């Protein structure tokens, strides 16, 4: 199903044709649907809460607490996706000792649906990441890293379409440029492709070919670079693309007072969010749908 045809004047004819094939009943009744997206980023192997004596984050965080919180939300709305925006690895001895095994096993127990790859996820080399994949019961998504000539070939997908409550949710991943950030011996022949071009292609595929109702970008590009205006970031990406509903970010460890509402290339609203780091917060975005055809004229509201 598609809801975006109204902004694509050029595709009006196609849309009408598609509509012609639909049974009339689709318009007869109104049904409300609710999708919840939960997300983390830059957890950096922080499995336990910070110590009580910690100077900045005393007794905050902890994956066992996050599990309780997520369980509660899933009970309230079973149509929930749980995503991570990368840098799962590196930051506590758990990573030094087990190479990410515990992180992946715990994320699997929490039933993460997908994650993208951060620069620190290469800290034990691409082989170190590959070695831990059997412990992850969730998908790794990256559309702009080309792993063709590496061990990760076929193990990382550009995107995945989830169906929750008959709503199609397309999620694609984007990674940061590794050159200059990660030792080339670590990422080997991973090819970094332009995130903007990749995102445009992904949004086209997810909207036009996969007919998603919701498109989410899982990004490790960073929220915004004040001193480097031209460096690609989530805010830059949002302004240069369209038909993406939500960008979940990471890398810059940005704590936002609230999710950012910004404009895309055609002036529509896009939500950009990031929840700091170290598992201190869980991001929650709720999407409400209505099948009543009259509802559309009333517009949508964003409450942050």
């Amino acid at each position, binding site marked *: *199903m598609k*809801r975006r*045809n*109204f902004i694509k004047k050029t595709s*009006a004819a196609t849309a*009408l044709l598609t*509509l012609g094939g*639909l049974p009339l009943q*689709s318009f007869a009744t109104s049904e409300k*649907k609710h999708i919840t997206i939960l997300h983390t980023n830059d957890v950096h192997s922080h499995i336990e*809460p910070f110590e009580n004596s910690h100077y900045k984050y005393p*007794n*905050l965080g*902890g*994956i*066992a*607490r996050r*599990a*309780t*919180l997520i*369980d509660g939300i899933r009970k309230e709305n079973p149509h929930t996706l749980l995503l991570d925006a990368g840098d799962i690895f590196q930051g506590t001895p*758990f990573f030094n*000792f*087990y190479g990410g095994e*515990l992180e992946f*096993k*715990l994320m699997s*127990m*929490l039933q993460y649906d997908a994650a993208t790859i951060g620069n620190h996820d290469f*800290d*034990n080399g691409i082989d170190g990441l590959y070695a831990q994949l059997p412990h992850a019961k969730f998908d790794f998504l990256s559309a702009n890293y080309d792993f063709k000539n590496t061990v990760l070939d076929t193990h990382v997908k550009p995107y995945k379409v989830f169906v929750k409550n*008959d709503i199609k949710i397309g999620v694609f991943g984007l990674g940061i440029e590794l050159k200059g950030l990660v*030792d080339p011996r670590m990422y080997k022949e991973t090819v970094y492709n332009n995130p903007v071009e990749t995102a445009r292609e992904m949004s086209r595929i997810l909207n036009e070919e996969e007919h998603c*109702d919701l498109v989410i970008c899982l990004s490790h590009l960073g929220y915004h670079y004040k001193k480097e205006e031209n460096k690609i970031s989530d805010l830059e990406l949002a302004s240069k693309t369209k038909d993406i*509903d939500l960008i979940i970010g990471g890398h810059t460890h940005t704590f936002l007072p*609230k*999710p950012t*509402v910004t404009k895309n290339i055609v002036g529509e*609203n896009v*939500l950009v*969010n990031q*929840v700091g780091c170290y598992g*201190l*917060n*869980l*991001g929650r*975005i*709720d999407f*409400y*749908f209505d*099948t009543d*055809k009259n*509802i*559309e004229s009333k*517009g*949508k*509201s*964003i*409450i*942050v």
Partner: protein
Amino acid sequence: MKKFIIHIFIISSLLSCKNKPPFLTKIEGKQLPITEGIKSKQEIEDFIKPFKESVDKEMNTVLSYTPHNLVRTDGELESSLGNLMADLCYLKGNAIFNSRTGKNIDFAMFNYGGIRAGITQGNITTQNAFNLMPFENSLVVLELSSKKIEELVYYLITENKAHPLSKQFNLVITKDGYNLKINNKPFDKNKTYFVLTSDYLQTGGDNMNFFKNSISSYNLDYKIRNTIIDYFKENDTIKVTLDGRFMKEK
């Protein structure tokens, strides 16, 4: 929590028939802090426990002993911890380099900022090694031209900081310049030097640009933290002195 409501009305007069449900009507976003008020899920805690016990046991393993506090701030242009780090890395690194190439490293140099924590007088544990070197950097040997060594000296003099240097490197800042000896021999402008450092500094970290574009480089594939741990395991008491390897002429 404050809520900001932004209503976006979409003009759809011409288009209402061209859409298909479901329509997105509302988006709500918020951040949920993970605080002590949230009870930990027992199943997760139980799963973590054996991993944690194993990590803690390893971390608390006593590797060595130091009769003095080891810090980076007890000298003017050198320090007990800096000297120790540079000397132990030279010792362990040169053994590998020599066995693989038949050549010897001339000296070792790291950065002051790379010493992340001191070691208190008493037992030294694995935890101390992790605190001292939390990063995953490895040792690398770089062959530098004499011109690059001069840049290195200029950097040390302008920085005026106790950057870790191994004992083979003796630099005295004099009234009218400097006096440099490497391995007890005067600095030779017609020679290249093998310098041991980290792969972080090799790429110009901490503005040590003289390490970039070396004549040749040799990665020892030996993590600095493991080098430190191995040295501690082999030495039951750590002896270190301030010997004036980098100083100002009095």
